[in-house]
Structures are given as structure tokens and as C-alpha cells.
């Protein structure tokens, strides 16, 4: 029996997702034994032509991490979509835009200007910018073009499954691979993680006060964090209640509040707006001034609540100036 | 304390003594008044009867000049403009209201001012001297400087219409008391009387004389009836009507008895020990001879 062919690809991402695969430790040997990895540019020497040479649907599963920002990324994911039977958006960036998605708060022009002109270390008197094509004696050279905005993978191509996290927790990866091999994947469109909040598996859950009320939100560096008590109850901006679990509440276990990398639950339409609602609701302040003072510990609400999901959010991007 | 000062036309002629006494009193009390340069007529009630926009434009030019000469800006968010004439005070205040509330009129006026490179941004605070003395300076400061208290002097304080109506900015609309309190601080005795804010006749005394005279006559009669030795005014037109027409008044109402009518600033000056000539008291038609400070 031929082993199913599997591919890995990365777009706009940090590489952490690739690390996560390796984080399977010895289990990765079982994976390699069970599947045939035919495309993984990060780890092995494959070329685009290798993929192009495949028949449509030849890849059983393709894991794609990262958001889509460049023409090259888009070409590649379209290509992989054709070749793969199942596409799994792997990690927060692919699922909902992730950290690269925060670039939607600024424009492409501003990004280029910043990089090629404005930074202090840049000397560019002729305002030279990279061009899509350039003629050299040897012929035409091309570069990928930056898109106006960052897209989540699902906004670029149809995606079958989402494996969330920044990066996806090893256990979720292992479960997903197991499901693929066993043929027990759920209905297409599913997120391959439990549909319940992080608090569910947080060791601090039992320390929550009956009435969760906070008079002042604080940032982690402003307080000595109690290592046992519920972080939200301590006034820290912990997005555990808003965020899908599956990580084993790793950040709270490390004494840091959850920042929401596993993203929204199925029944939530807009992660940021919902998280904002939950957080502001527990503020125990009546008058306008007290409310503003209490919320001063959330200096950057958009960045806080859409840290991993701006492209997938309803508002998607900042209005052009 | 420095303030811009808007005299208005009357204080340069019939109301000269008002200006003289006001400036003398302010100098003594250490209140600086700088006359607004190049000021124009406020528009008064008469212009309002012809063309409201132009009337308000007249007022607005003064307000704009005040902002400019008062150097309104960071550190000086507003400038006080002192208008002793009740009519000027009201017209300027009314123009402020109109500019604020009415976009259409305000827009026309702003455009016209702009043609003359002026602008008004709503940063002038209109003040009547009564307001200035009682609220900005404070009665205690005045009391401390009284050298000739008005002991035993019964004073009818007459506010007239326009400093309390239609805007009651610094005093009660029905029973104003700032001038009464001031008289008390000067050592005098204000009399309680019901006609404090009843109209003196305004410009009618000059136009439909018999109407104006009767209105003034009743005021003086009631003040006398309540035992007043002197009646104080805070407006050049009130003073003019009530004082200069007492002869024709006598002709029309034989029971009329003369009553001195002073600007409140004149009486203040006397209590502060200033010379009578500095206070324009020689300009009175009905002389005020009662000795003060004895």
C-alpha cells in the first residue's frame, strides 16, 4: 500500500509553525513512517516544479501555515490547493491572519516607505524601491508583488480544516494527523481543536471568585502576578475565556495571560469584538471617568483583541487615511 | 487686573461723568481699564430696528477687536470686555448669543469680518462694571478702601432693564442685589423698592417725551416715597432720562420733587474719598449736596 503523500508550505509567517511540527519529538518518526512527505521547502529540498509535476489531488493533505500577502504566496497556495485533496490552514496566521495580519492597520505604501526610506538606518537618496520586473543584460528578473492587504488562507483559497494556535500545540497536531490516518476527520470546515474556552483546561479555574469583577485592568509588567489565582480576577487582560482551548492553558500555566492565539469559538463571529465585550463587562465601574480609568490597562484595544485575527475580523483593516 | 474697556458713544458725551467716575474709581482700586482702540457704535436698539445682521456686525467688530487687542490665545483663553452702558452691554452680549446659536447670521458676519481681516472666535467675556466690582474684584477689597463711608445715606438702587434682561448673567432678574450690596459695602443704606428693574422710558424720553417723562417720574416718585436721598443708575441713558428731564417733569407733574440721580460709580468715588471734580459731579443738573463720610 502506498503511503499517503503529504506537503507542508509556509506563507507570511515566522516559521514557528514549522518548529511545531518538529515539536512532535519522537512522534514525528511515526508520522514519517505513516506518510510520504513530498513537499516541505523549509526542511527538504523541493522545487515548485516538483509540485507542478504532480497530478491534481495527488497530495492527500497539505498543511499550509502563514497568511497570504504576496503574489507568490497566492500562486503557491492556489497551486497547492489544486494538487491537494485536503488543505489544512495550519496555525493562527493561516487561520485568521495572525501577527502578520496586524499589517492591515497600515497601508502597503506606508510599509514600503518605512522599510525603504524612513527607518534611520536606511540610506536611499534615489528612493529606489523593489520592482516587480527589472531588465538586466541576462534577461528579465522578477520579484513577487506585495498585496494591498494581508489575507487569511481561507480568504485566498478554499480551506478544509483549521489547526489553530501560534504555533499549533503539539497535541492538536498529533490528534489531527491521527485523525487523517484513521480517516476520522470531522466535517469539512471544522477547526481541529475543542470548541470550548481556555478556562476549561486552566489550572487556575477553581480560584475564580463567584462574581468576576475587576475595578482596574493592569498590564503584566505592572503587577506581581499571583502564580495560582485566576489571572483575569487579578485584573490582567487574559483572553482565556474568549479563546479556543487545546493548548492546555499553556500561557497561564507559565504565569502569563492568554493572548488568544487559538482564536474564536465556532459560535463567535468576530473574536475581537466578542473578547472586548467579555473583558469590558467584568469592569466594575459606573461613571465615565471611572470606566476610562479602569480600562486604562488596555492601552491598545485593537492590537489586544485582534492580535491574531485582524484579517478574519469584520472590520478587516483600518480605513485608508 | 487688566480689562479692555468699551465706553460706547454715550460715555463720550451725555454720560461723560460715568466715564470720568468709573476711570477714577478703577484707578483707585487698582483695576486697569484699557480703552478698546478704534471701537465703533455697538449698534444699540435703534440699529436693531433697521437691520439686524448689520447691527450684530457692528457689535461683532468690537468683539473681534477685543480679541485681537486682548491678545487672546494660549495662556489667555478669554478676555474681559467691560461695557458700562447697559445698552452696549446687552447688544454686545446678544450678538455673542446670536453668533453662537445662529449659523446663518453668524456665517454672514464672519464673512464680512474676514473681509476686513478680522475674526471673532467667541472668547470675549462681557462684563458690566457692577459685575466687575462685585464678582471679579470683590466687595471686601472695595470696603477696605472706603475712607468716607456713606453712613446714613439712603440709596435707591436702580438697575434698569438691560443689564438683567433678557439675560440674567450676574444678578437676579427680578430682585437684583449687586448694587445694593455694593452700597452696603460703601456704608450706605439701600432702600427696598419695587421698581428696580422697571423701564425708565429709554429713548422714548427723547422721542415721545410725555411717555418717557411719566415713566421716569414714577420711578423718582417711588424712590422718594421709600425714603431715598439719592437714586443710583448703572446706565447713561437711565441717568440722562432720570436726571436731565426733571425740569420738564416738574412742568408736567407739579408734585414732582427733585431727586439727585448719580452713577453708582460717582457715589463709589465719594466713598473712596475722591474729589468731586474727578467724578464729574459738577455736571449734574440736580446737584448732589449731601455730605458723605461725616
Amino acid at each position, binding site marked *: 500500500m502506498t503511503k499517503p503523500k503529504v506537503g507542508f508550505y509556509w506563507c507570511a509567517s515566522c516559521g514557528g509553525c514549522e518548529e511545531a511540527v518538529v515539536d512532535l519529538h519522537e512522534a514525528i518518526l511515526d508520522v514519517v513512517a505513516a506518510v510520504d512527505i513530498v513537499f516541505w521547502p523549509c526542511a527538504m529540498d523541493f522545487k515548485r516544479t516538483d509540485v507542478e509535476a504532480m497530478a491534481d489531488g495527488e497530495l492527500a493533505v497539505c498543511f499550509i501555515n502563514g497568511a497570504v500577502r504576496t503574489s507568490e504566496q497566492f500562486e503557491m497556495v492556489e497551486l497547492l490547493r489544486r494538487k491537494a485533496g485536503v488543505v489544512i490552514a495550519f496555525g493562527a496566521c493561516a487561520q485568521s491572519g495572525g501577527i502578520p495580519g496586524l499589517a492591515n492597520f497600515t497601508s502597503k505604501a506606508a510599509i514600503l516607505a518605512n522599510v525603504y526610506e524612513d527607518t534611520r538606518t536606511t540610506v536611499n537618496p534615489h528612493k529606489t524601491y523593489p520592482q516587480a520586473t527589472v531588465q538586466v543584460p541576462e534577461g528579465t528578473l522578477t520579484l513577487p508583488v506585495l498585496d494591498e492587504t494581508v489575507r487569511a488562507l481561507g480568504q485566498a483559497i478554499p480551506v478544509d480544516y483549521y489547526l489553530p494556535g501560534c504555533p499549533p500545540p503539539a497535541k492538536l497536531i498529533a490528534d489531527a494527523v491521527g485523525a487523517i490516518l484513521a480517516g476520522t476527520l470531522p466535517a469539512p470546515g471544522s477547526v481541529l481543536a475543542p470548541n470550548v474556552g481556555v478556562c476549561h483546561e486552566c489550572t487556575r479555574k477553581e480560584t475564580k471568585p463567584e462574581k468576576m469583577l475587576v475595578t482596574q485592568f493592569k498590564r503584566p509588567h505592572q503587577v506581581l502576578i499571583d502564580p495560582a489565582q485566576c489571572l483575569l480576577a487579578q485584573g490582567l487582560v487574559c483572553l482565556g475565556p474568549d479563546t479556543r482551548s487545546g493548548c492546555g492553558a499553556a500561557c497561564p500555566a507559565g504565569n502569563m495571560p492568554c493572548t488568544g492565539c487559538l482564536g474564536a469559538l465556532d459560535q463567535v463571529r468576530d473574536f475581537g469584538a466578542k473578547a472586548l465585550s467579555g473583558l469590558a463587562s467584568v469592569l466594575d465601574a459606573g461613571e465615565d471617568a471611572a470606566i476610562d480609568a479602569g480600562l486604562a490597562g488596555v492601552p491598545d484595544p485593537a492590537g489586544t483583541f485582534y492580535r491574531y485575527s485582524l484579517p478574519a475580523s469584520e472590520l478587516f483593516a483600518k480605513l485608508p487615511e | 487686573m487688566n480689562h479692555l474697556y468699551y465706553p460706547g458713544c454715550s460715555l463720550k*458725551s451725555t454720560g461723560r461723568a460715568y466715564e470720568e467716575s468709573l476711570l477714577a474709581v478703577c484707578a483707585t482700586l487698582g483695576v486697569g481699564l484699557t480703552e478698546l482702540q478704534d471701537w465703533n457704535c455697538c449698534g444699540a436698539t435703534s440699529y436693531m430696528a433697521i437691520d439686524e445682521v448689520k447691527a450684530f456686525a457692528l457689535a461683532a467688530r468690537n468683539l473681534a477687536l477685543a480679541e485681537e487687542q486682548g491678545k487672546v490665545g494660549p495662556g489667555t483663553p478669554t478676555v474681559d470686555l467691560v461695557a458700562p452702558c447697559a445698552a452696549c452691554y446687552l447688544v454686545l452680549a446678544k450678538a455673542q448669543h446670536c453668533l453662537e446659536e445662529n449659523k446663518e447670521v453668524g456665517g454672514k458676519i464672519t464673512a464680512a469680518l474676514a473681509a476686513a481681516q*478680522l475674526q471673532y472666535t467667541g472668547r470675549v467675556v462681557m462684563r458690566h462694571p457692577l459685575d466687575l466690582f462685585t464678582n471679579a474684584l470683590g466687595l471686601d477689597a472695595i470696603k477696605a478702601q472706603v475712607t468716607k463711608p456713606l453712613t446714613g445715606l439712603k440709596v435707591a438702587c436702580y438697575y434698569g432693564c438691560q443689564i438683567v434682561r433678557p439675560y440674567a448673567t450676574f444678578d437676579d432678574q427680578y430682585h437684583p442685589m449687586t448694587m445694593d450690596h455694593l452700597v452696603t459695602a460703601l456704608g450706605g443704606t439701600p432702600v427696598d423698592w419695587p421698581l428696580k428693574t422697571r423701564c425708565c422710558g429709554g429713548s422714548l424720553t427723547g422721542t415721545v417725551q410725555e411717555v418717557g417723562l411719566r415713566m421716569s417720574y414714577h420711578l423718582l416718585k417711588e424712590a422718594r416715597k421709600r425714603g431715598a436721598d439719592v437714586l443710583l443708575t448703572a446706565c447713561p441713558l437711565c441717568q440722562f432720562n432720570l436726571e436731565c428731564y426733571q425740569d420738564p417733569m416738574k412742568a408736567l407733574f407739579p408734585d414732582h420733587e427733585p431727586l439727585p440721580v448719580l452713577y453708582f460709580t460717582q457715589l463709589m468715588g465719594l466713598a473712596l474719598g475722591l474729589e468731586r471734580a474727578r467724578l464729574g459731579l459738577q455736571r449734574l443738573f440736580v446737584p448732589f449736596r449731601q455730605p458723605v463720610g461725616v
Partner: protein
Amino acid sequence: MDEITRTVKYEADTDPHFAEEIAGIARGETLRACIQCGNCSGACPVSPYMDYTPRRIIAMTRAGFKREALSSTTIWLCASCYNCTVECPKQIRITDVMYALKQKAIKERLYPKRFPVAVLAREFSAAVRQFGRNSELWLIIYLYLKTNPFAMLKQSILGLRLFLQGRMGLKRERIPMGTGKKGDLQTIWNALDRADR
């Protein structure tokens, strides 16, 4: 009774837009809210001299009795004491309505001729227009010339006394006009005139 007059008013003789027009000039006044309580007349110190009480002027304006309202002495006798405005239970700014009626009367030339108040208003505004300030002596001279030259003689004693007491001068109060410099009043007049056209 000397003469019997017939006083029916036909609808054709009324001006249905008059109330709105006056309300417009007086800036949004709600004449229609008047409940004819007469508080304005009761509060008015001059109402005993008026041919119509202020309340009736409001009623006439509201009903479109334009000629009657504009040619009344009432509007010219108003001394602008604002008592009616302050007292009105419906907060109608009656003083401003009176101003509006005066403006309209002058525009329509319906004011009582030689009635001194109307003449004063015109002379006053003409002087201010020309000189930027008002000189009381000159104003009074013009006023009497235009209304009742003989009465001026009666007033001359008062004038002389004022002159002697230093309360009235022959000097004309004026500010520079037509300089074209910053703040020039003439420039403002011209701009307003242009806007009017």
C-alpha cells in the same frame, strides 16, 4: 360717535405668510404658540400708550393683519426693556418680534410718517453707517428737523445746559472709515452689502 366704521376683515386682505416671515426675521420665534394670555401687555411699561397691546400685535401678526401690525405705534413705542420676553409663559421673544416688525415696517415703508421713533432709528443708523460712532447732539438735531422742527426750540434749553455742563459737544465722534486697512468698518459694510445683494 363721530363716524361709524365698518370693520370686517376678508381673508383676501390678510397675508397668510406674514407670521412666518416675521418669525423668520426674529429667528425661529414660535408666534403660533401664543396663548393670548396678555402677560406681555401686563408686564409692558409702555403698553398703556400703545394703540394695540403687545398681545394684540402678536395676534394680528399671527392672523396675517400685516398692514395693521406694521403701521401700529406699538412697535415703535417698545422701549426694548425685554420684560415681555422674560415673562412670556410660552417663551416667545416678543422684543425680537417687535424688532422684526420694525425692520419690516421700514422696509415696506409702512411706519407712521414723522413718528419720531422710526425717524430716530433711521437717522441713528445713517450716522453710524457714515461715521462708525454716534454723536448725540447731531442725532437730536436731525431727529427734530425730520419730525417736528418747532419742538427743537423747546429742547434747546436742555441742549444748552448739556453743552455748558460739558455733557454734549459739537465734535463729531468718528472712527477712520474707508482706509481699507485691517479692521476697516467700511470694508465690513461693503461686504455685508454685497452679501445682501
